[in-house]
């Protein structure tokens, strides 16, 4: 039926090693891309972009970033919120310092600055492992939030300590500020999401990604076969922080528009992104998307069902949300430690054999 290798011949090496080797899968990917790039921008409104698509796209970038570090390289990190804050504040300083430069460049530079900070905090990973590294990154989280609260240069000495995104554009199209069009902010985030996913996917398929995975699976063995742990771990920190920094910059500049570091980039943010990759699937790009979609959509869906349709009190629904997310994390850890991505993988395997499974 569908999802078959049968009749799908590779005649060249590039064909053989492409990301989606099965024709059906490849077409599905193109259709999703087509809908995301060509169809949705024409249908989207403020509610959809601000409540669903933008948080989904931005969290997906953060999840991809964290997945590279935790899922591919095996370095547990609880500093995601802090690194997102670095991206956000770097973007803010760049936006206010160089107002005429395109937002694209600001966001990329913010990612680059975060990558440098990430490498700095990644240095301890050469000596400490596992839980101890998690605690070291936790220190990064608290230190960075404290820093952005304490040093008023970061928020341009404003009285409230808040940073506010001024109106900025790219190619004459407004990207930040209150007067943006829904499609513009959506496309801006989508471009970064696609870029991140494609880069991350190809990095993890190449020699760098193999080094990361070797370190993850057994660092001593990896060292013996010639993987340089210094290089592998620090590149993982750099690439991961780069993506997390981009997501932080978008989160502040495009999505929220005004940010207070303790509230927006606190420890809860680190946990949220970690939950995304646990539920979505460690070591999987698709899992990053699935986890982000799940945790962004679940509260919105619960609210729509509970409050708007069933008319339940808002507090009951909010509490129910906590109960369900907590329960799901426990269920996933027990029943499917590899997350939604594994369910997808199993479904694909089943499809290949269907309708004659042995």
């Amino acid at each position, binding site marked *: 039926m569908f999802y078959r290798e049968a009749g799908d011949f590779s005649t060249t090496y590039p064909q053989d090693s492409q990301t989606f080797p099965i024709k059906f899968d490849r077409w599905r990917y193109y259709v999703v891309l087509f809908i995301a790039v060509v169809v949705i921008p024409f249908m989207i409104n403020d509610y*959809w972009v601000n409540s669903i698509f933008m948080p989904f796209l931005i969290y997906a970038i953060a999840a991809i970033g964290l997945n590279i570090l935790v899922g591919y390289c095996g370095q547990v990190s609880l500093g995601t919120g802090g690194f997102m804050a670095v991206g956000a504040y770097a973007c803010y300083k760049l936006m206010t310092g160089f107002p005429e430069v395109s937002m694209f460049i600001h966001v990329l530079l913010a990612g680059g600055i975060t990558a440098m900070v990430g490498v700095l905090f990644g240095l301890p990973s050469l000596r400490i492992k596992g839980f101890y590294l998690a605690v070291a990154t936790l220190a990064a989280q608290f230190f960075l939030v404290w820093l952005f609260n304490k040093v008023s240069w970061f928020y341009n000495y404003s009285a409230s300590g808040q940073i506010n995104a001024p109106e900025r554009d790219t190619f004459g199209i407004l990207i930040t500020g209150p007067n943006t069009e829904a499609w513009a902010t959506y496309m801006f985030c989508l471009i970064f999401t696609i870029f991140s996913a494609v880069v991350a996917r190809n990095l993890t398929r190449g020699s760098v990604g193999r080094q990361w995975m070797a370190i993850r699976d057994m660092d001593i063995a990896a060292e013996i076969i010639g993987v340089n742990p210094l290089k592998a771990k620090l590149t993982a920190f750099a690439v991961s922080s780069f993506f997390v920094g981009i997501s932080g910059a978008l989160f502040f500049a495009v999505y929220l528009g005004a*940010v*207070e570091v303790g509230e*927006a980039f606190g420890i809860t943010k680190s946990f949220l992104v970690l939950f995304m990759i646990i539920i979505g699937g460690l070591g999987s790009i698709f899992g990053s998307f699935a986890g982000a979609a799940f945790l962004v959509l679940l509260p919105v*869906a619960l609210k729509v069902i509970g409050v*708007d349709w069933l008319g339940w009190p808002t507090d009951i629904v909010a509490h129910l949300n906590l109960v369900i997310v907590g329960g799901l994390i426990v269920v996933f850890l027990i029943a499917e430690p590899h997350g939604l991505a594994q369910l997808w993988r199993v479904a694909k395997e089943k499809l290949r054999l269907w309708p004659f499974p042995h």
Partner: protein
Amino acid sequence: MNYKLGTWAVAGLMAASPVMADLVFPSLSYRTGPYAAGGIPFADGYADYFTLLNERDGGIGGVMTRVLECETGYNTEKGVECYESTKGEGALVYQPLSTGITYQLIPKATADDIPIHSMGYGRTSAANGDVFSHVFNYPANYWNGASAAINHILDENGGDISGKKIALVYHNSAYGKEPIRTLEKLSEKHGFELSLLAVDHPGQEQKSQWLQIRREKPDNVIMYGWGVMNQVAVQEAANIRFPMENFIGIWWSGAEIDVQPAGDKANGYKALALTAVGDDFPLYDELRQYVVDTGKAAGAGDQLGTVPYNRGIYAAMLAAEAVKVAQKMHGTDDITSGQMRDGMENLVITEELMTELGLPNFGPTFSVSCQNHGGEGLVAVTQWDAAAGEFVTISDFAPTDMDVIQPLIDEDSAAYKAENNIESNCN
């Protein structure tokens, strides 16, 4: 990616909900999380007042009111979601009850032509209506609060506080940081020594701050706290035997629930107030008759007369009065959010009006103008009587030091105006 398809189905159902002619008041409430202690009674009061108007008068000017409640959990991301999901329903005015969410909504709501009423919170310099066309923070703002606290300390010390040590214990967020600049100016003016002690969200951990207070022995402590932070601070102050009558909180740190956990030791704690205390007003009899006894009260219906509940009633009353002004101005009963803004800008609250509404002496009198969106900034002081279990007003609504505050408002709003290329609202 497949999840996207499912969300479209939800969209279709949401779009299908009917649209009626009514006055929509979104209530971005928080009944969960560490700030729920203040969020629940405020949201109850806000909703109950509109229920009363519907039940007793059939709405405002014959148009029914509808309160759309949306849970934010004091979280800015959820605040965005709530704003986007309610603005399409014809929302007239937003009262987010969170400084963080207010900051975020200021540019958005201005672009969407929807007014924001941040009553006693939000961005203080929004009092300059010339720059912030859609933001109102009457009757008083954070800087009035800081000045009122200092005025009270001045009164107690015969007008001379030079050389005194005053500590500010504040929530380490935009909210808590707002008064710092004003207090610094006031410390220059009056010659007191100011020390700053930040408490991080959510505020349960304050041992080190109070240890520092114990060591430095300030003469007075001013607190800008909210939610669970208040209860912890009052308890910690009691633990180090800090004299409660020298401990004064902003109006967000002055609810019954903040002082009750410390028991008798909290006796004498002071807090600023935007409204009168208790439920000894004619309106409350009607509230009981039309709302509570008929089972239509919001939440558990047990918050009548508490400080945040009264503030919710007051906020709803001001919104309803602004609607009446707008209806009169524009000659239509079913007003839009832009007309609501005009109503708010021409709002005048007098003693006669409050008496007529069944709320005599309930709040300060003030008038709003195009330039001044902050009112006159009159603030009262209350004190906790632990034996009676109630706050007692110890000084009536009094003016604050606008000589210090107004230049700060002008300076901050001018910076915002330049930063965002805003045109003057008033001409």
